[in-house]
Each structure stands twice: as structure tokens, then as C-alpha cells.
């Protein structure tokens, strides 16, 4: 029984335990401890993976229609598994106290979380294409179950998701079957050899199918429409889990297929004539466009959860960019961003969840001023948004910096510019987020709100703290990334605790963060020690051009927060993809109606006559006989 078996069994055991105990009070604590135990198992796997760079195999395997399916986890899967289990840990910690107590379906949430973890672990330990596909479908349906649990709008969003996911899965299936038709087995190695020998048109097909199929889960344009509503309609803790890691399964699968099975050399050799682009460039551009578009859609959202989930889509683009550059720096940056993103996004979602827990809404136009009531949630969100915006000293900055550097080294200035513009858009939208929720005027109905209980704030703050620590000491994360990089087969990136040293400009976060802290200390000295005492005043003691402010007067600038920008870029929000989707649905509706109308036994003789005439004509012409 290998460690991987223990991991699988552990995940299943959690699901079982939650099915039995999920409704009881200590369920959240039990789940949290179990995930901690799973994390420990993962930690035990690390030395094994580091020693031999080999995969840890599971002893479960079976044969079907001549194919052998087995599971083994390599460094890449291990890296993602680490994030998965950690995300589950924090999600169940968050729900272990008051938050879970007020949910009416906490047992189901616990079970589904465990099932999701199990499905993801299965996917992350796939060692061949068929196993990858099976794991992929498991993950898709598990997250469908998770998203749909609330019914109503959530069910609607989940339904949309599953259609997209299934369409993607079918594309993937087609690609896998094509590869299998040319390869000796489903093994990645065999598949790689087979792909290299394929004719160029088939290669294009395979690449397109795989990118589209797995891209659906990542929310790659134009398959992104499902993601934001689906993730944001899920209850808080589960939503944090989904946001942190679920969409990254698509990235994992893309890394496995594009980098390991197909290989960047094949991708770069697939060139399009006349536009100087190859397959890799096209996917990278797709990623970059996803990044920009999703971020600027996020900018226009008026719901905190939607805003964050739209950002999730955009951030996926960064990761894909970094990974596809396929240099040590790029892959390290991309993979590191997966982890960093998971941390700060979970913190942000949990923070919004605690705000929702107290206020009952996440509508950005109906909140404000909560900083005085929920300071800890505010601090979490502050750390989170600094990470999301990619500003120092949080971890998001380091991974983004590495991706930028790798884009520079790969001489992709336009992609880099798009990445920068995305960051700018992110800063704008996260400020809107924190401003509209926590800053500004406190509404009268939120006067008596209290901070969320410790069971919620502690995991949140811990995530925020991790965000800061891994920002100041990126070497910690980079060590984990090493395992994944080794598994992909990319040369390892030389790094130290503070960052990386490169000939073309280095980054030492220890000094950057140290300087920031020192300078802020100096700022604190200048501010607090010099000058007169300050006194906090009531929020209505505010300069409003001589106007008297009062509770019934909304004096919080929140709706349409960026009017100037909206005037310029507003006309670009045409909703082309939404409309394309809607017309597709209309079309299928009309076709369906027509077909249903055609099912009338009274018309059958006519059909038969037509079929006979057409068939006989076809028989004659195709038969080639006189």
C-alpha cells in the first residue's frame, strides 16, 4: 500500500465520515483535521518525489478493453494536490463554526467537498490519457454537484457549467481518441511519440481540441461564460475551494497535454502562414485576451463574488502564459501563481463570505463602511487584494514578476503589455471592491453588525498571513514548485529564499519587503510621533460643500465607480459572446421545435416516398452502374 493509496483512501474516508457525521456539530473540525492529515501524507510524499523524481504509484489498477488504467502521482500532480487539500482544509475550517451552523445543508457541503477533493486527487494522479479523461469527468461532475446544491440560480449556473464542461470533455475525448488511434497505448510517453509523427493537420486538430476542451474549465475565452456565475452562486466555503483550485484543474490538464504529451517544440513548429504565429503563440494570445477581457469584465461587476470570480478567469491567463513560455522562469512563475492565486483568492472569497454572513448581501451597491464593524475581514481583504493586484509585498507580485520577466526573455512585448494592462485593470477593480464594501459611508442597517466569529476570521487571517509570508519569502513556494518543474521536465530555476538572481535584473523580496517595512516604519514615525494628536470623528463630520450629512442620505460614491473609464471602454462591452451563446440556444430551440413538428405519423408516407426517391437516385448515382 503506497502513500498514494493512503491518500485516496483518506479522501474517501473523509467523504464517508462526512456522510455519516456531516450534520453534527464537530463535523467541521473533524473535516479540518482530516484534511490536515491528508496534507501530512502529502508532506511525506515530498522526500520520495525529491529523491528520485519518480512518481508514486497507486496499487489500484484495472484493465478494460485492452487498456490498463492505473494511477500514480508525480511532482506536478503533487503540487496541485497540495493546493487542493490545503484549500479544502481552509474551506472546512471556515465552515467549522458559526458559518457551518447556519447552513441548512452543511452535511451535503462537507460530503461534496470531500468528493471533490477525491476526484481531483484522482485526476492529479492520472498517468495516461484515459485516466486523465476519467479523472477529468469525475472532477467535472463532482464540481457540478457542488455548484448545484443550492438550487435556483445556483442550479441554473451549474447547469450551464456542466454543458460547457461536457462539450469540453467531448473535445478532449475526440483528441484522446485521435492520439490513441496513432499511439501504441494511452501512456504519455507513447502518446508523445505518436503525436510527433502525426501530420500537421491532425496535430492542429489535436491541439485545438485539447486547448478548447481543457480551456473550458480554465474559462479560456470564448468558453468562459459559465464560470463566474457558477462559482459565485456556490455557498461561501465551497466557493472558496472552487475558486482556489477547481479551475486550475484545467491548467493542470493543459500542462500535462500541451507540455508533456505534445511538447512545446511541436507547438512552436506548427506555424500559421503569413501571420508569423505558431500554435503556442495562438494559445498564448488566447490566454492574454482572456486575461484582459475577463479582468475588464470584472471591473464592471456590481457583485463582490462575481467580481472575484471574473478575476479568477483572468488570473488563469497569467498562469497559462507563464507555463507556455516553458522557460524555467516562466513555468516557475506560472506554477507559483497557481499557488499564490489559490491563497489570496481563498482569502478574498472567505472575506466576502463573512461579509455576506453578517450582512446577507454581496451587492457592491448595498454595502459600505464596514471597516469599523468588521476590521479583521477588512484586513484579510486588504491583504488579498494587494496579492490579487500583484503589488509588493504580497505573493501575487512575485509570481507576476517572474511571468513578466519570462515574457521579456521570450521577447513577447505585446503579451507583456497585455499582462501589465490586466494588472492595472485589476488594481482598479479590487479597489472598487474594497472601497464599496469596507470603506466609505456605513449604512444605517449595518450599524449593529459585529465582526465575524473567530472560526471564520482565523482561517481567513491565516491565509492573508501566508500570502504575506510567501510574498516576503518566495523561496518557500519556489521549493514546492521545483517538484512540479522537475516532473514537467523543465530545468529547475535557481532560487534563494528571497527570490531569484538573474543576470538581467534580480528580485530579492527580502530586501524589497524589508525596505518597505523600514520605510513604513519611518512613515509611521513621521506620522504618529510628529505633529498634534489626532481624534477620530463621526462619519457624518465630513466636508460635503457645507452640506449636513445624515443617515438617510446616501453619501457613498459606489455605483458606477469608474464613470470616465466606462464612457471610453463602455461601448466595447458588446456582449458578443453572450449574444452568440443566446443565439445558439435560440437556434437549437427552433431546430428542436421543427424536429418535434416533424414527428407526425401522418406524414410518414411522404417521408417514405421522399426517402425512396432520394435513396434510389443516390443508389444509382453512387453505384456507378447504368
Amino acid at each position, binding site marked *: 500500500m503506497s502513500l498514494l493509496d493512503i491518500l485516496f483512501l483518506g479522501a474517501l474516508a473523509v467523504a464517508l465520515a462526512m456522510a455519516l457525521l456531516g450534520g453534527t456539530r464537530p463535523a467541521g473540525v473533524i473535516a479540518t483535521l482530516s484534511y490536515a492529515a491528508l496534507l501530512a501524507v502529502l508532506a511525506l510524499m515530498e522526500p520520495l518525489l525529491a529523491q528520485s523524481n519518480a512518481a508514486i504509484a497507486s496499487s489500484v489498477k484495472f484493465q478494460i478493453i485492452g487498456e490498463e488504467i492505473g494511477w500514480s502521482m508525480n511532482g506536478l500532480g503533487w503540487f496541485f494536490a497540495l493546493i487542493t487539500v490545503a484549500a479544502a482544509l481552509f474551506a472546512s475550517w471556515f465552515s467549522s463554526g458559526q458559518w457551518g451552523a447556519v447552513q441548512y445543508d452543511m452535511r451535503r457541503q462537507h460530503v461534496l467537498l470531500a468528493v471533490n477533493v477525491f476526484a481531483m486527487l484522482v485526476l492529479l494522479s492520472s498517468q495516461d490519457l484515459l485516466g486523465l479523461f476519467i479523472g477529468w469527468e469525475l472532477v467535472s461532475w463532482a464540481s457540478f454537484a457542488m455548484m448545484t446544491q443550492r438550487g*435556483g440560480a445556483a442550479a441554473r449556473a451549474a447547469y450551464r457549467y456542466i454543458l460547457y464542461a461536457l462539450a469540453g470533455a467531448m473535445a478532449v475525448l475526440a483528441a484522446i481518441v485521435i492520439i490513441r488511434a496513432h499511439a501504441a497505448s494511452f501512456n504519455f510517453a507513447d502518446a508523445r511519440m505518436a503525436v510527433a509523427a502525426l501530420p500537421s493537420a491532425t496535430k492542429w486538430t489535436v491541439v485545438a481540441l485539447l486547448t478548447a476542451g481543457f480551456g473550458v474549465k480554465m474559462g479560456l475565452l470564448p468558453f468562459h461564460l459559465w464560470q463566474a456565475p457558477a462559482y459565485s452562486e456556490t455557498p461561501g466555503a465551497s466557493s472558496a475551494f472552487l475558486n482556489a483550485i477547481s479551475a486550475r484543474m484545467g491548467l493542470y490538464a493543459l500542462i500535462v497535454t500541451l507540455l508533456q504529451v505534445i511538447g512545446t517544440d511541436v507547438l512552436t513548429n506548427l506555424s500559421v502562414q503569413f501571420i508569423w504565429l505558431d500554435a503556442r503563440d495562438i494559445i498564448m494570445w488566447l490566454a492574454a485576451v482572456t486575461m484582459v477581457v475577463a479582468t475588464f469584465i470584472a471591473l464592471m461587476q456590481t457583485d463582490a463574488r462575481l467580481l472575484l470570480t471574473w478575476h479568477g478567469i483572468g488570473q488563469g491567463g497569467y498562469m497559462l502564459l507563464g507555463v507556455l513560455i516553458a522557460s524555467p522562469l516562466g513555468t516557475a512563475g506560472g506554477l507559483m501563481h497557481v499557488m499564490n492565486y489559490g491563497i489570496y483568492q481563498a482569502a478574498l472569497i472567505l472575506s466576502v463570505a463573512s461579509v455576506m454572513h453578517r450582512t446577507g448581501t454581496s451587492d457592491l451597491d448595498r454595502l459600505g463602511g464596514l471597516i469599523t464593524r468588521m476590521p479583521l475581514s477588512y484586513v484579510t481583504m486588504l491583504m488579498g487584494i494587494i496579492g490579487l493586484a500583484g503589488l509588493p509585498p504580497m505573493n501575487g507580485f512575485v509570481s507576476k514578476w517572474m511571468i513578466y520577466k519570462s515574457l521579456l526573455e521570450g521577447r513577447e512585448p505585446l503579451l507583456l503589455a497585455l499582462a501589465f494592462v490586466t494588472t492595472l485593470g485589476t488594481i482598479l477593480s479590487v479597489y472598487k471592491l474594497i472601497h464599496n464594501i469596507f470603506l466609505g459611508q456605513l449604512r444605517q442597517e449595518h450599524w449593529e453588525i459585529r465582526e465575524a466569529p473567530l472560526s471564520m476570521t482565523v482561517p481567513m487571517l491565516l491565509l492573508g498571513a501566508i500570502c504575506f509570508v510567501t510574498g516576503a519569502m518566495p523561496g518557500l513556494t519556489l521549493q514546492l514548485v521545483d517538484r512540479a518543474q522537475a516532473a514537467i521536465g523543465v530545468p529547475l530555476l535557481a532560487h534563494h529564499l528571497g527570490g531569484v538572481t538573474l543576470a538581467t535584473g534580480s528580485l530579492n523580496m527580502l530586501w524589497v519587503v524589508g525596505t518597505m517595512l523600514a520605510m513604513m516604519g519611518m512613515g509611521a514615525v513621521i506620522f504618529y510621533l510628529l505633529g498634534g494628536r489626532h481624534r477620530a470623528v463621526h462619519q457624518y463630520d465630513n466636508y460635503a460643500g457645507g452640506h449636513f450629512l445624515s443617515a438617510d442620505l446616501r453619501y457613498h460614491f459606489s455605483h458606477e465607480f469608474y464613470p470616465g473609464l466606462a464612457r471610453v471602454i463602455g461601448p466595447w462591452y458588446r456582449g458578443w459572446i453572450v449574444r452568440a451563446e443566446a443565439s445558439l*440556444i*435560440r437556434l437549437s430551440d*427552433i431546430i428542436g*421545435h421543427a424536429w418535434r413538428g416533424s414527428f407526425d405519423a401522418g406524414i410518414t*408516407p411522404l417521408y417514405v416516398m421522399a426517402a425512396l426517391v432520394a435513396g434510389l437516385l443516390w443508389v444509382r448515382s453512387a453505384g456507378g452502374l447504368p
Partner: protein
Amino acid sequence: MTLPWPPEFISANLSEASLLGHAMIAGAVGLIVIGLYAMVVERNLARIILGLALIGSGVNLFLVAVGYRADAAAPILAGSMAPTAMVDPLPQALVLTSIVIDVGVLALALALAIRVHEAFGTLDTREVQRLIAKAAAENDRGSPPHRPDQHVSPSVARKEREKRADIPRLEELM
């Protein structure tokens, strides 16, 4: 394009083209076409059943024609002597079977038609279809008609569905 006449198998089987052979084939095809035509254009179930009968007769005639040989005798074995050339006996056996089946089926059809007329007071196939759908809908525990979209345009159907709130509608869901 040349007409496929006479068919390949006929020219193979009919050693010399006989008028009767041609007439039988033409008659069979004619009967089938007339029957099909009747089934396509008629809406009265009785007439449709008649069309069905015509097709059946046409097919039977065709079967007989398949076994026909212009210069052969009937396949009757008198004693131990066999005629030198016989009409193929098998199709005739088949036709007998087929006729029996046809009779049974047509009887069943007419019986059902009578039952339909008793129940609905009409034999118009479209009317019958409508009444069947209505009856099936009423069967569904008095719920509203379950095929609103069979008789109205898609947009009207959609609007009807939109009236029922809180149930995921297709266009909303996708």
C-alpha cells in the same frame, strides 16, 4: 439519365421479354405508387387504410411476377414427372402467407378505425392526432396541455414557459 427499365433482374429472369411479365411488373409498381399516393394525400384513415391495401396488393403482385416465367408451366408435380420448365413455386407460397397477414392486419386496422370513430367521431388523421395529444395531456393528472409547442410558434411557446417562474428554462440555463 436512363430509366432503369426493364430492371436488371427481370431481364435476367425473363429469357424473352413477355408482355405478361412486363405488365405484371408495371402493374405492381403502379399499384404501389397509387397506394403511396393515396397515403400521402389522404387524411381520412379509411382511405389511408385502402392505400395500404393497394400497396400490399402491389407487393404481392410483384412477388408473383418475380417467380413468373413466360414459357413455363405451373409447378405441379404430377406423379414423378416434372415439367422441364416450371414457374418458381416459392414466391407463390410466400404470396399466400403475405395475403393472410395482410388480411389480418387490415382487419385489425379497420377494427381500430371503428374504435377511433366511436371515440372521437372523426377519421381525419390530423384531428385524431390532436385528440390523442389532448387525451394524453388530460391523462397527466389534469395538468395543462403538455405539448404547447406543437401548435404554437417557438416564441409563443417560450413566452408560455417564461410565465412559469423559478423553473430553469432552457434559454436561461444555457
